[in-house]
């Protein structure tokens, strides 16, 4: 071999392999070390808000169905639940039963009764909630597997199953319950306890919100109005005067005498409220009215 030039070509090949290899490694580590894509954190936050909106819609729909049952129970049981302690006028083939509103019923607290029935009814809905949050998917760069195998670039840390975003969203949503009921005109506003959601790509950040459901044309104030009208105009008063005053206050009221009792049917928001009173007996003690807006 020619001593001067024979080593040149193999050395050149070695240099090419090393140089291009180092170039590939530098590109891979630069890509792997990139901490943020422009807009990543903002989009992560927006996705969290989006999840909150979805949870809110789910709770709103569930509230609609649950409140229908609760309202029906209150309307047919004089503002009490189905399992009440009130005396009753039994149902006949022509008419449903009438609950007698007197001291045997206990404390007249429509909001508390509604909350109890509603909470029981909405529980299975909330426990069935499934998150549809789509986490970010990350594209592996070409050849990164080789470098990860040799420990030249770090492997991504996968979170525990229970800590991934959809699992946290589901778990925290299932813990929510009704906190407050507010009357707003003819509507009922239900406020639930707070739900905490994580923000992807931002481990220390969280978004806390209290879901709200607005139930259109489902008011409980009518019970307070009816109670006050009965207490003022009917209890221990003349029947004729009671009837006439009630008809002045409520246009859609039907009053029927049955022995000592007055059977009252009041149409409200296209649903009948049925109850009976004994004008010789006091009404049950009443709790304070619902907050209004």
């Amino acid at each position, binding site marked *: 071999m020619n001593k001067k030039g024979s080593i040149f070509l*193999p050395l050149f090949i070695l240099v090419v392999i090393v140089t291009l290899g180092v170039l590939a490694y530098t590109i891979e580590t630069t890509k792997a070390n990139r901490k943020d894509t422009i807009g990543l954190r903002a989009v992560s936050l927006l996705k969290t808000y989006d999840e909150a909106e979805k949870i809110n819609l789910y709770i709103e*729909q569930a509230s609609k169905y649950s409140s229908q049952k609760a309202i029906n129970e209150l309307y047919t049981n004089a503002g009490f639940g189905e399992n009440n302690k009130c005396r009753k006028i039994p149902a006949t083939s022509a008419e449903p039963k009438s609950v007698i509103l007197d001291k045997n019923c206990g404390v007249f607290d429509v909001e508390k009764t509604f909350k109890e029935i509603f909470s029981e009814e909405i529980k299975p809905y909330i426990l069935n909630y499934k998150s549809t949050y789509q986490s970010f998917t990350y594209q592996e760069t070409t050849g990164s597997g080789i470098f990860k195998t040799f420990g030249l670039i770090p492997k991504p840390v996968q979170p525990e199953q229970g800590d991934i975003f959809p699992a946290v969203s589901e778990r925290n949503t299932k813990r929510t319950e009704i906190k407050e009921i507010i009357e707003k005109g003819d509507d009922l506003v239900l406020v639930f306890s707070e739900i905490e959601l994580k923000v992807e790509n931002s481990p220390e950040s969280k978004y806390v919100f209290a879901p709200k459901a607005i139930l259109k044309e489902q008011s409980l104030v009518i019970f307070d109005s009816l109670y006050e009208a009965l207490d003022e105009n009917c209890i221990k008063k003349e029947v004729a005067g009671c009837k006439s005053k009630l008809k002045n206050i409520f246009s859609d009221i039907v009053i029927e005498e049955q022995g000592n009792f007055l059977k009252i049917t009041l149409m409200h928001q296209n649903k009948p409220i049925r109850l009976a009173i004994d004008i010789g007996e006091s009404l049950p003690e009443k709790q304070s009215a619902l907050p209004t807006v």
Partner: protein
Amino acid sequence: MFNKKGDVSYPIIFGPYTILLLLILILYGVLFFGFDLAESQALVISGQSYKDSIMLINLLKTEIEINSENITIADAINKLNELNKEPIKKEIEKILLTFSVPNQEKDEGTGFWFFEVKKESNIILEAGDKANLGKDYLKQQITLPLSNKQPIFVNLYLSCRSCEKEAIERLS
């Protein structure tokens, strides 16, 4: 011609090493340009990764007229057992036609919005069209309860054939 002193081995060394060099260059060429190792990653996040559900939420809250009654699409889905599906499907399709799609005239691709409702993996309601041999983009999904306490999954996505990436980004 060859140097008599030492160039006998020249053709033996030069040929194989040259071929080896070419192979190495071809390998790296494929790695850098064929597999896009040298491609610079996008610095700005893609609009598609947002995947927000605002269109779907607004669609579900939209009121439609069914049997002379105004109810939201979410409530109509709840009453699928009682109501005829066809009027609900037609109302939803009317709304889907108002959503933006890739511009066919500008060769952005052929796309249609598709709406489906699934209960325990069974499709209970479908509305809209799907592009033949199309891919699904901009998928939005939401869970809703039925009055019998079972959850259903509502999906809305763009079914698109030969759609340009820029068109999808614009719609997202």
